[in-house]
């Protein structure tokens, strides 16, 4: 098989953006759930639940802006985004 050079889209896939919740801070305010309805649900007690079941859920590219918004809007600064090797 010929070796194909990496182009931009392939390169991007080597890194995934994830959302981290600091559970010691989160007080179940819920604005992140509204901003990221496809990524986060809400549990019996009003706290966010990653729908994927992942500890730090992957943020797909199309949701990155909403996620940035959620990080800025969390009243207790419990959220952060980070890039990790996928």
């Amino acid at each position, binding site marked *: 098989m010929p070796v194909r050079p990496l182009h931009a889209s392939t390169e991007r896939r080597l890194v995934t953006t994830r959302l981290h919740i600091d559970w010691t801070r989160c007080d179940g305010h819920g604005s992140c759930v509204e901003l990221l309805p496809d990524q986060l649900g809400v549990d*019996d*007690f009003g706290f966010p639940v990653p729908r994927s079941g992942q500890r730090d859920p992957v943020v797909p590219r199309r949701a990155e802006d909403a996620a940035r918004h959620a990080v800025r809007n969390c009243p207790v600064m419990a959220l952060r985004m980070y890039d990790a090797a996928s």
Partner: protein
Amino acid sequence: MTTAPSALARRLLDGAGADHEAHVARYGALPGLRLDDLLAAVADSGLTGRGGGGFPAATKVRAVAQGARRPVVVGNGIEGEPLSSKDAVLLNRNPHLVLDGLEVLARALHAKRAILAVGPEIEPGPVTDAARRRPVHLVALAGGFVAGQETALVNGLNGQAPLPRDPFTRVTESGVDDRPTLVLNVETLAQIALVARYGATWFRSAGLPDDPGTSLFTISGSVSRPGVIEAERGARLSDALAPARPVRPAAVLVGGYHGAWVPASDLGARLTRAELAPYSASVGTGILHVLDTETCPLDLSADVMDYLARQSARQCGPCLNGLPRMASDLHRLAVGVRDPDLPNELERMAALVTGRGACAHPDGSARFVASTLRVFRGHVAAHLEGRCPSARSTRARSVAS
């Protein structure tokens, strides 16, 4: 192939107490090793952490070795698990071996400080005497079930409340005094002291090729001789339990309150990752608690879950709310409330809290609940019909009659 491991081994427990000369006479002088040599020996030995997580010890050492700043090395002797006393026994009988592990690592890593942190369960005499002339700071901290979680220990050593913190920043990057911090269980340190002296090949002469060495186990519950033993890794559960003489065992809780049950019919299972996986159990901190055939397992499990809910550091919403919910549902099941949704509801809640806390407490508690429902399935069904098969159950029968 090594021969199949039998039960008893004598590497850690025949120490010389606080007497350093006797210790050196028994084990030989502690060699000074360069980091590369120590890392190679620990990696080749296959030693895994004996504090619960079971990760390769070498991986953790390597993580702090890469830091830009000189690290801090911490021996974790908090032992907050009520069913565990192996760290207390080790620090009582063989404190110098633990201190050797700290010292050999601290020297190889050019550590800024070496600290031995002990909880209230540790008898202070021998370890204090032993630490006096060694380059190690001995620090006594408050106990509690989650106080031994790595980040709680680091917070405690930094003079803050000994509660777990958000694990986003690993303690291997920033821990005690914001320095890269290596936290290892005291038994892991004692094992490193042996590997540093005798090498990886010697270490591997006990245990299995993919799970070598020995481990300490604390045996309690329905046994005539409770206590701490040392056994080869990969011993059969029945062989490890034999010296304690189990009495009418119905099941064994492997790994403590964050662990899982193995039914008495399966005591031929080896204490390895692979053979314990079907039960979602792991050796963990080496707790083996025997349940007898007369005690109602749901009664006992409900009491354990009560305890776990009370031990939540009450920082994280899912843990703070979900654990008491599981405790109360398990109690309802134990006393014979005939609500057929209870098992499903418990399973749902166990899945819901998993992975949603700053420390491993919700995950461990959920594992225990899920295991209780699975292993005592027949018992659960009987309770839902209003009866309890256990002779000594007071609750289900009185409610049902």
